[in-house]
């Protein structure tokens, strides 16, 4: 009897271990693909995280955040998020819509008649569309998101930076900074505290050095062109911090589920054909499953990619200190599979 019980226990333990071992193999394989692609692209440093339903499932950093000083990249290394800043702006604006301060069909001119995009509606800005409501057309111009700061100020009675700074505190994104120039803020400007400024300074000490990479994959230090947070770029964050934001978003802490579902629904053009961009995120299908994603890039400095598969409860976060993650691939056209990194992620986890 005792021997049977022991055999049963061993069998159960073995069975339980098989899926765990298989998961490790899959993540290991994915990590190898990412590392191989990083090497070919000559990206000096790359941080990668896969977030599940409740927590980080896998993380790996490779290469160096500073080549000259041989400082290894880590998953808590801060990078410029560039265009992924739009996701934060979209979340703030959609919250304003939820709270009834504005509607998606308000035009920007209602809040600032001198706005260069005054005739565009909030929905059009968020979806990168123009034209009529029944026949929108898509063109990816992230800088249009900068106009949404007027909406934020109406809704929050503060600046976008103040709203983001508050959000960073709320979600314990301790290594994130609302713009490189946030360390120059004199508290309590934008509601930013002395402690926050000190924290920003500490994070920026570890900011990944940006690099320009030539065809021989030789990396030379460059400069970040953007110092100030705008609606479309400027946020500095880490893969781990973004994971916290992603979890808060998907768990309904930031936005109601129905709001997020609407944001992650592709608009259609006059012929009923889906357009590539929802409200703040690109939206497409892969193997019949919805994929929402966003990317960021600064020429010769940095690049980033975030891919979420809602039905699987998975988000991939990739941050790099050269433009190699994005620049060679036509992501602005709206197909994330143009990126080999995303293609590998989807190929392995959405089969």
């Amino acid at each position, binding site marked *: 009897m005792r021997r049977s019980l022991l055999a049963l226990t061993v069998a159960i333990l073995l069975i339980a271990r098989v899926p765990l071992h298989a998961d490790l193999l899959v993540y290991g394989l994915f990590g190898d693909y990412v590392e191989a692609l990083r090497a*070919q*692209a000559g990206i000096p440093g790359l941080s990668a995280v896969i977030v599940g339903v409740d927590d980080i499932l896998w993380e790996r950093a490779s290469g160096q955040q500073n080549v000259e000083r041989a400082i290894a990249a880590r998953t808590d290394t801060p990078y410029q998020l560039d265009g992924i800043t739009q996701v934060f702006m979209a979340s703030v604006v959609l919250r304003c819509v939820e709270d009834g301060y504005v509607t998606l069909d308000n035009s920007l001119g209602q809040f600032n008649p001198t706005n260069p995009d005054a005739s565009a509606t909030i929905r059009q800005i968020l979806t990168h569309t123009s034209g009529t409501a029944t026949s929108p057309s898509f063109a990816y111009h992230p800088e249009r998101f900068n106009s949404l700061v007027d909406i934020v100020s109406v809704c929050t009675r503060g600046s976008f930076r103040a709203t983001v700074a508050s959000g960073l505190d709320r979600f314990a994104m301790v290594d994130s900074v609302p713009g490189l120039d946030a360390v120059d803020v004199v508290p309590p400007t934008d509601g930013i505290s002395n402690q926050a400024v000190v924290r920003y300074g500490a994070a920026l000490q570890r900011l990944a050095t940006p690099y320009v990479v030539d065809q021989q994959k030789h990396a030379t230090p460059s400069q970040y062109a953007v110092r100030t947070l705008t609606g479309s770029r400027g946020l500095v964050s880490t893969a781990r911090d973004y994971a916290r934001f992603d979890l808060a978003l998907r768990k309904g802490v930031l936005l109601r589920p129905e709001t997020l579902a609407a944001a992650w629904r592709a608009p259609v053009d006059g012929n009923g054909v889906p357009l590539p961009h929802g409200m703040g995120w690109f939206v497409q299908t892969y193997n019949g499953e919805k994929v929402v994603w966003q990317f960021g890039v600064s020429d010769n400095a940095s690049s980033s990619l975030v891919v979420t598969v809602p039905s699987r409860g998975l988000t991939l976060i990739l941050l790099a200190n050269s433009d190699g993650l994005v620049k060679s691939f036509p992501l602005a056209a709206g197909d994330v599979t143009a990126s080999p990194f995303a293609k590998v992620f989807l*190929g392995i986890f959405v089969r």
Partner: protein
Amino acid sequence: MRVGPLVLAMLLVPATRVSAEWQIKPFLGTSFAGSTTFFDLDQGAGERHLAVGMTSVKLGEVFGVEADVAHVPGFFQSGGPFSQLVLGSSATTVTGNVVVALPRHLTEYTLRPYFVGGGGLMHARIDDARAILSVSSNLAAWDMGVGVTGFLSDRFGVSWDVRYFRSFGGADEGLSTGPEQLSFWRANMALAIRY
């Protein structure tokens, strides 16, 4: 008096009129200094790999034509840290070339240098572990090179040559960084059979 054209004519005109000869040259060689835009997960393209193939030449006193077929197994594999990602790979070239050789009557008992240049097709194949970034692509290509052939008897000899192959006009099929492109050098030694 112009000496140059006279010397050139003497070089080009055979001492006795001879018919064109056929040569078959099975060879072994190595590819090296490769470069590609394909997602080369194991970074094998730049490594040296064994090349096998055969060249068939119809060569007159100076000019000739040539068909060259070569296969480089494992072209995109290096045995490096990511070797498990690439299960198999190869690069294959099929080219037709023009041959310009030193006149036969001047090189009857010595090595006979030649220049080749032409074009054809290149086939790149990469099978990755999860078939996510697998490649099977045909590309137009040009090649050029130089070599020497020396005969030890009426029928048998040896030949060495080095050539550069480069694809052109590749499209972006989502399996490369930009348009598909592949180039490499090949150096080989052949057994030359004349008939």
